[in-house]
């Protein structure tokens, strides 16, 4: 059986004032029915990778790859109209800036309902019921009230959960979640992770989980890709993350502040320019 997703030799380039900037430099990885974590330094290319898979990098940005296949079928070269069917039920993405990604002049409940109606053949009333159910599922306290709110009226963590509900409602084969729980307190975070986990276990969804929370990734995911400077510098089984060998990954583990061990200053990384030049490690299965 083929993988859910195969990405081979992906490059993303942006022209800037100071020349072409290579945000992603030839990475390869695949995704099975698993929870694949991506961690890495701010600016290392995690979000751009997710957006490139969905073909959401707008010109003048340039994407090149040997192949991007969804269940063995090309999605890199198919026409944009066909790609629209892939977005949503094929692959959906929870963006890093949820409130920015929502429509500011539409009630959040209507936005979720609309996402549902686009893919399911049901009535408006049913879509509304389903939306309320989803809001309850992501632990929104007052779903009827929140249904009628506009994006600027919801708190940071509520916005994040609304985005999560909206992206899960079409029942995608692959969910790319970009820092999906960064604004959530611990208890709500656990509930949201539980929902994603159930989709992977029960429906066989593939999850790409982008996060800077190393402890979370090591306990929640199956496999991890570690990115640095647009490349994958290391891959490992998630529960082996603490045995990582790359100096960047090791440095990360030492920079964590700790509740039980107060420190005056936190360790910072000394970045070796050579890290940028090493070849990318393959994350393919």
């Amino acid at each position, binding site marked *: 059986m083929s993988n859910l997703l195969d990405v081979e030799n992906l490059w993303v380039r*942006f022209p800037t004032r100071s020349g072409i*900037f290579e945000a992603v430099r030839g990475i390869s990885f695949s995704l099975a029915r698993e929870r694949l974590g991506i*961690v890495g330094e*701010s600016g290392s290319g995690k*979000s751009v990778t997710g957006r490139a898979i969905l073909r959401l990098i707008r010109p003048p940005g340039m994407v090149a790859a040997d192949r991007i296949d969804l269940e063995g079928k090309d999605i890199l070269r198919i026409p944009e109209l066909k790609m629209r069917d892939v977005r949503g039920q094929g692959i959906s993405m929870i963006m890093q800036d949820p409130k920015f990604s929502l429509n500011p002049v539409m009630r959040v409940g209507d936005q979720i309902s609309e996402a549902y109606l686009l893919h399911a053949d049901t009535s408006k009333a049913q879509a509304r019921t389903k939306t309320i159910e989803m809001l309850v599922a992501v632990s929104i306290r007052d779903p009827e009230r929140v249904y009628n709110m506009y994006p600027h009226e919801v708190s940071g963590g509520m916005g994040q959960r609304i985005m999560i509900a909206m992206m899960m409602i079409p029942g995608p084969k692959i969910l790319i979640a970009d820092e999906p729980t960064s604004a*959530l*307190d611990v*208890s709500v975070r656990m509930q949201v992770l539980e929902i994603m986990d159930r989709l992977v276990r029960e429906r066989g969804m593939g999850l790409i989980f982008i996060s800077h929370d190393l402890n979370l990734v090591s306990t929640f995911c199956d496999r991890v890709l570690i990115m640095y400077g647009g490349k994958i510098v290391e891959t490992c089984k998630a529960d082996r993350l603490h045995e990582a060998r790359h100096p960047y990954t090791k440095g990360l583990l030492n920079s964590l502040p700790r509740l039980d061990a107060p420190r005056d200053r936190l360790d910072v*990384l000394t970045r070796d320019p050579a890290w940028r030049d090493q070849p990318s490690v393959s994350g393919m299965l």
Partner: protein
Amino acid sequence: MSGILIENLNVWFGEGHERVDAVKRASFEVPEGGSFGLVGESGSGKSTILRALTGMVPSWNGRMEILGKELGAKRDRSFYRKVQMVFQDPYASLHPRHSVDRVLSETLQLHGFGDIDRRVSKLLEDVGLGPEFRFRYPHQVSGGQRQRVAIARALASEPSILLLDEPTSALDVSVQAEILNLLTDLRRERNLTYLMVTHDLAVVSHVCTEIAVMQLGEIVELLNVDDMRNLRASHPYTSHLLRSSLGRRSESTEAESVSTEAG
């Protein structure tokens, strides 16, 4: 003198049966040069308290003071020179069509600083962004880079009070460590007062000495960092928060000891 004083603050949105009481009878004080943390449930009113201080909520009552001066309905320019805020959503404070350079230069000009060119470079360097970011637009940088531009913008006017709403939520731990160290240094050098919202208890315990825990618009408990580190909480929600973080902490402790052995 107190840096920030809040007494019986109520904030609400809407009217009649639509009314939402976002903050209810909140009171706390941050001494000048102190560092105070707000933690709590999503939607419990943390950001709303910060926005009330900066004059961004329509309806409130109670008392708010900044550096001994009572706040009324309006804030003038001298207020924003003294008090700056880093928003939870960095896009909120960055104009989409203004380059990083313009955002920072205009803030500096507005507050009457000279030597703009050098200051802009210094601000970017302080938050770990190289000169190549200077002429980018907000949509041309990553989430964590955008958050750092927002921090640089807040630091530009050399404020004495910083309101920080989840300032490191989009940063990987290595960059987070650099930003937290920068905040520690600045507070020492310039006697800054911090009011910080975060859901990361390790971060709050690193930066803050006093902490308020919020739930459903109310401050349910005030505790100091020693209480927090030793898990001395009296409210059930606080105990719950501390216990959940403890679960993850023991994992990280384990991970670290293993990695030291391996290294």
